[in-house]
């Protein structure tokens, strides 16, 4: 709908008839020509035939022009914003900066700014509170400037709206101001109801309430995960305003933010909850650290998983010292091999059992395996028992030592054992070795197929008593228990009645052994029972921001108790330490979203939409249309007066000039971007499905450095010259002789051919489409590297905000899976792949070169470059304008001066390019140089 800012101007339409009359009356002024043969002419023309009225179409054109001007002056607006000034008094703003505010935060800020400036024009103070703010944050009253500053500083927080505190404080603040006039409350909401219902604003304080709601709510959140038997089931909830069937994608990431798997997230029509099943092997599922909905940069769309669903740590303790020469006879060998795929193994070394067990428990394992440990030192036994009672899981294996032990009432055994073992297979025995009976339907092994190829020759026997059957988890075909277990307080004790090596039975070398151990480990309560991770006060480790990115906790984050709800001071994230943390997620399971509905008893309530999403000023197009008509009118007058008669002989020129006029006018309407936008619009439609063979052969017949076309001719030429200059330098300095630079368009071209794609960021060119970003993402995942150059080092220092190029880059990278980045550290392979470099200058210097962060160091072991994986950093970011420094003309003379103008800087820029190319082509091979001392030492030299 269209509204007018100054509707009175529309009265100007009254003068249209007068204009029409005047236009009809006044002919265009004729061109006067001296013409000697007038007498001949007079025989043709009768004087009364001379038209003294404008042609009708010219009149129509001018009337249309006048109408357009009147319309434009009346300030027409598409979907006009309601008049926001609700009163003359002060304004109290309650702004939601919840997790869902990210997409329309700008609109919210614009609306708030408009309200603050309105109040400023009236000379009224502003109260301003945010739904996510520190309890003691200042809420005003502010002067206009201070309020605007605070508004600019505010940002979405990764928590749900909790408006009650803010409203209470606003009410309190407004009460002091109420004397100066009714305070109008503006509620800039995110449209979602909070957990606690919003109390009615105090009518004695607030004269009016304006409720702003976004036009479209896109709440979408993961509300729970369940690591089931065969799949990780992810529950999601969405906004009830969106009820059509939808399929999204969730991606699971490991602890280094590498995507592991993705699965469709399906919402049925009419349902506001959905489900995704990530079907992965158990080991991989354990590696999942977070799950996020694709292309939904919101804190709610990210679910963090802690170690309750992660890998267990298992401590292995054996009484017998392993004989290094005969590993197959070592008591722990088969257990270790069986557990390795899905558990972290801790194996304390030493002869002193007490010290060993203490050391094992210090590592806070989920499971402790005691292989053939009979008698334990009392201190170790007490501690172990305490650990089990706290939730630990103890798995014991029988053996000669255990069999020789008088167990008595050992609490750490599930059953009383008879002393000595039972031999089923011996020269003096009548018994045959016994196979294993089917596993009972209840118990940890339920559902596992009973192994047919396993036979037990020896075992320890349980002293039968009344509780033995229920503690029996597996038994032999003759009914004697094979595996027994029982719970001890919060923990579990399990006993294999056979040894952990292949002497007593061949169970440890069967596949069933692995399955059984896995079931048992799954039983364990994980998270290092008995450790501090599960309980107590945990410091924030890493927290989510509003866009759902995991990062350093903000300064306002506070330690969380076990039951602390997510709040502004406890944002969702990981709490604890790196080895043991608890994940706090934004939403509890079964969370549903509901729209924010004000109560019926609210003071005079106005509903409004946000400014940015709705109001479109139509003045520009109308004035541009008027200008176009004016141009046409001028052309028509020129044509009628014969001024174009010279051109009349060449009608093409007229057409060209008219077309030029139209183009200029059209350009002023929609900007030059129009043409470009069209071209990019068409691009995805014409997506290449098959690779153009000739182009492909051309691309791969030589190693080429590719660069992305921005559409800006100057940048593209500079880039092309830069890559060419670098190629020449590479050819002269290294064994690499690259082919001519290849310009690529990420929308259409196949990228896989190029080791490096140089991407100069041009904020003025149209942003690449999501499809193109996906292609880039895939390219980076598959081993390619993109070097983003924002080229703004010179200007970015002057601007406290991010430069447009940087913002564009951020927007682009937001749609990709980007690993954590760091500036090139001093020992990175990039610093020594060809030249020894300490910095990477381009045309400018000072901007760091960002690359994928290497693994975090473990202990005092240096993390780099030894631990760097074989991968090359898939992304590099700089602002130094490499291509500008590399660019050279046909004679090798540089095109652009470096800043500062230092020939050495250009040399270093080339060297940086060489190093980058070397890393691209040789990987981390140079990293091996750090091993040289160790290798030499090993060689005995």
């Amino acid at each position: 709908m269209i509204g007018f800012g100054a509707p009175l101007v529309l009265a100007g339409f009254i003068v249209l008839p007068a204009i029409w009359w005047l236009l009809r009356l006044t002919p265009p002024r004729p061109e006067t020509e001296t013409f000697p043969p007038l007498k001949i002419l007079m025989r043709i023309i009768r004087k009364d035939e001379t038209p003294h009225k404008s042609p009708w179409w010219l009149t129509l054109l001018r009337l249309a022009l006048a109408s357009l001007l009147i319309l434009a002056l009346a300030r027409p607006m598409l979907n006009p914003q309601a008049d926001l000034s609700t009163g003359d008094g002060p304004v109290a703003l309650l702004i939601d900066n919840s997790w869902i505010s990210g997409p329309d935060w700008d609109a919210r800020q614009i609306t708030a700014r408009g309200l603050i400036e309105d109040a400023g024009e009236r000379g009224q103070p502003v109260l301003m509170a945010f739904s996510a703010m520190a309890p003691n944050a200042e809420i005003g009253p502010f002067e206009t400037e201070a309020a605007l500053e605070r508004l600019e500083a505010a940002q979405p927080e990764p928590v749900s709206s909790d408006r009650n505190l803010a409203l209470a404080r606003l009410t309190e603040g407004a009460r002091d101001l109420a004397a100066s006039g009714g305070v109008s409350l503006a509620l800039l909401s995110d449209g979602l109801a909070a957990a606690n219902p919003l109390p009615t604003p105090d009518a004695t304080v607030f004269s009016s309430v304006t409720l702003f709601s976004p036009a479209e709510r896109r709440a979408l959140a993961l509300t729970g995960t369940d690591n089931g038997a065969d799949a990780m089931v992810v529950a999601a909830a969405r906004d009830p305003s969106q009820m059509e069937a939808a399929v999204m994608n969730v991606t699971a990431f490991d602890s280094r933010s590498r995507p592991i798997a993705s699965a469709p997230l399906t919402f049925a029509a009419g349902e506001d909850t959905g489900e995704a099943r990530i079907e992965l092997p158990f080991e991989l599922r354990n590696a999942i650290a977070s799950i996020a909905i694709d292309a939904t940069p919101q804190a709610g769309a990210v679910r963090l998983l802690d170690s309750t669903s992660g890998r267990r740590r298992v401590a292995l303790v054996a009484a017998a010292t392993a004989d290094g020469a005969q590993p197959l006879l070592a008591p722990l060998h088969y257990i270790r091999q069986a557990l390795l795929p899905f558990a972290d193994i801790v194996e304390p070394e030493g002869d002193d059992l007490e010290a060993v067990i203490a050391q094992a428990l210090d590592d806070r394992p989920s499971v402790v395996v005691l292989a053939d440990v009979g008698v334990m030192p009392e201190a170790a036994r007490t501690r172990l028992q305490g650990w089990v009672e706290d939730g630990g899981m103890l798995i014991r294996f029988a053996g000669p030592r255990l069999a020789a032990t008088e167990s008595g009432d050992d609490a750490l055994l599930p059953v009383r054992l008879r002393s000595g073992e039972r031999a089923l297979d011996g020269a003096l025995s009548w018994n045959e070795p016994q196979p294993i009976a089917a596993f009972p339907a209840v118990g940890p092994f339920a559902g596992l197929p009973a192994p047919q190829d396993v036979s037990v020759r020896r075992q320890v026997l349980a002293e039968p008593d009344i509780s033995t059957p229920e503690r029996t988890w597996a038994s032999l075909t003759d009914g004697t228990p094979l595996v027994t277990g029982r719970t001890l307080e919060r923990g579990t004790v399990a006993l294999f009645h056979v040894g952990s090596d292949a002497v007593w039975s061949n169970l440890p070398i069967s596949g069933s052994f692995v399955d059984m151990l896995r079931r048992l480990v799954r039983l364990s309560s994980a998270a290092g029972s008995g450790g501090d991770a599960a309980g107590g006060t945990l410091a924030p480790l890493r927290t989510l921001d509003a866009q759902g990115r995991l990062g350093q906790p903000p300064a306002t984050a506070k330690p969380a108790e076990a039951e602390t709800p997510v709040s502004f001071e406890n944002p969702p994230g990981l709490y604890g330490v790196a080895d043991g943390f608890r994940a706090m997620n934004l939403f509890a399971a079964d969370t549903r979203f509901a729209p924010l509905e004000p109560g019926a008893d609210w003071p005079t309530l106005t509903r409004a939409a946000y400014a940015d999403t709705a109001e479109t000023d139509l003045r520009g197009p109308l004035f541009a249309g008027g200008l176009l008509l004016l141009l046409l009118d001028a052309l028509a007058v020129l044509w009628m007066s014969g001024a174009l008669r010279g051109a009349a002989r060449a009608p093409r020129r007229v057409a060209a000039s008219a077309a030029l006029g139209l183009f200029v006018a059209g350009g002023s309407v929609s900007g030059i971007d129009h043409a470009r936008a069209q071209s990019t619009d068409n691009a995805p439609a014409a997506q290449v499905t098959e690779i153009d063979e000739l182009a492909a052969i051309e691309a791969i017949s030589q190693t080429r450095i590719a660069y992305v076309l921005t559409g800006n001719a100057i940048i593209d030429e500079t880039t092309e010259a830069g890559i060419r200059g670098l190629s020449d330098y590479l050819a002269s300095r290294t064994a690499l002789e690259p082919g001519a630079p290849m310009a690529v368009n990420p929308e259409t071209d196949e990228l896989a051919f190029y080791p490096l794609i140089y991407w100069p960021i041009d904020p003025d060119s149209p942003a690449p489409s999501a499809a193109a970003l996906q292609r880039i993402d895939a390219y980076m995942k598959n081993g390619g590297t993109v070097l983003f150059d924002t080229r703004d080092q010179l200007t970015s220092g002057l601007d406290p905000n991010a430069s447009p190029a940087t913002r564009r880059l951020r927007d682009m990278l937001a749609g990709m899976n980007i690993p954590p980045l760091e500036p090139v550290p001093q020992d990175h392979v990039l610093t020594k792949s060809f030249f020894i470099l300490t910095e990477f200058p381009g045309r400018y210097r000072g901007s760091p070169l960002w690359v994928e962060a290497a693994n975090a160091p473990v202990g005092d072991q240096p993390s780099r470059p030894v631990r760097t994986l074989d991968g090359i950093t898939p992304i590099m970011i700089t602002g130094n304008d490499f291509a500008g420094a590399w660019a050279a003309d046909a004679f090798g003379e540089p095109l652009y001066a470096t800043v500062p103008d230092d020939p050495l800087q250009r040399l270093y820029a080339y060297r940086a390019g060489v190093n980058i190319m070397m890393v691209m082509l040789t990987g981390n091979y140079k990293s091996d140089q750090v091993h040289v001392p160790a290798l030499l030492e090993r060689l005995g030299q």
Partner: protein
Amino acid sequence: MTALGARVQRGDRATVLARSRARAALLPDLLVEARRIANIITPGWHGRRRRGIGEEFWQYRPYAPGETVARIDWRRSARDEHIYVRDLEWQAAHTVWLWADPSPSMLFQSRGATISKESRALVIVLALAELLSRSGERIAYPGAFAPTASRLGAERLAASLYGETALADQPDLSHVGGASDLVIVSDFLDEPEAIEARFAPLAARGTRVHFVEVADPVEESFPYAGRTEFLDPETGEKLTAGRAETIAAEYRALYLARREALSRFAQTRGWTHTVTHTDALASAALVRLFGLLSGEGSA
């Protein structure tokens, strides 16, 4: 958009003379075709390559009985048995009347033209005067310059025209003799009937008239378009055409018909009609006139 054509000031006679000299220098001496000339007693300087009254020896011929004895060349006759008469080469001058239209309609020059019509007319007249004077012909200008034979005829004609401030728009043809040539340089934009009425009496007198029509290119092509107000420089009349391009074809037809009528009028009387355009060089017309006057170009 400025007008295509504009009125111009009268040309400086001295400049015009210099230009006409330059044109004239390109042509050989102009000899008015002798056979066309009846018995003219006015002596000229140039022999007419036939016997007649003159000073130079032309030929000896046998005496025919009946001739006056006084013409016998006794010295020659004494050499042999025949009696010879000594003939002299006929040296006679012819009178050529020249007239350039001075009317305001001539004071017009369009942007495509190199020179105004009036200037072109004067150049042709003075160039002819120069050529004729060089050849010893007598030149005259109706109302301004009596028939004169002088080597400096062109200068003197220019001087007399220069002094003449108010030239009649139409030539006074009463003094034009019968056996003379009349060169009328004009745009002939008057009604054809008026022109024919004016010149028809000359045919009776035996005067040979050469019409030289000076035309500006825009007059002929009529490239006007759009709403145009036409102004007659002669009468000051105005005429507005709503869309001039629509009448262009009709106008051109009329214009050319007028020219055709003039040409036919000349041809039926053995006269000539030459068209010169002000965007072309005057020499073309001058060469044609030269031919016509010397009898080489006409049938």
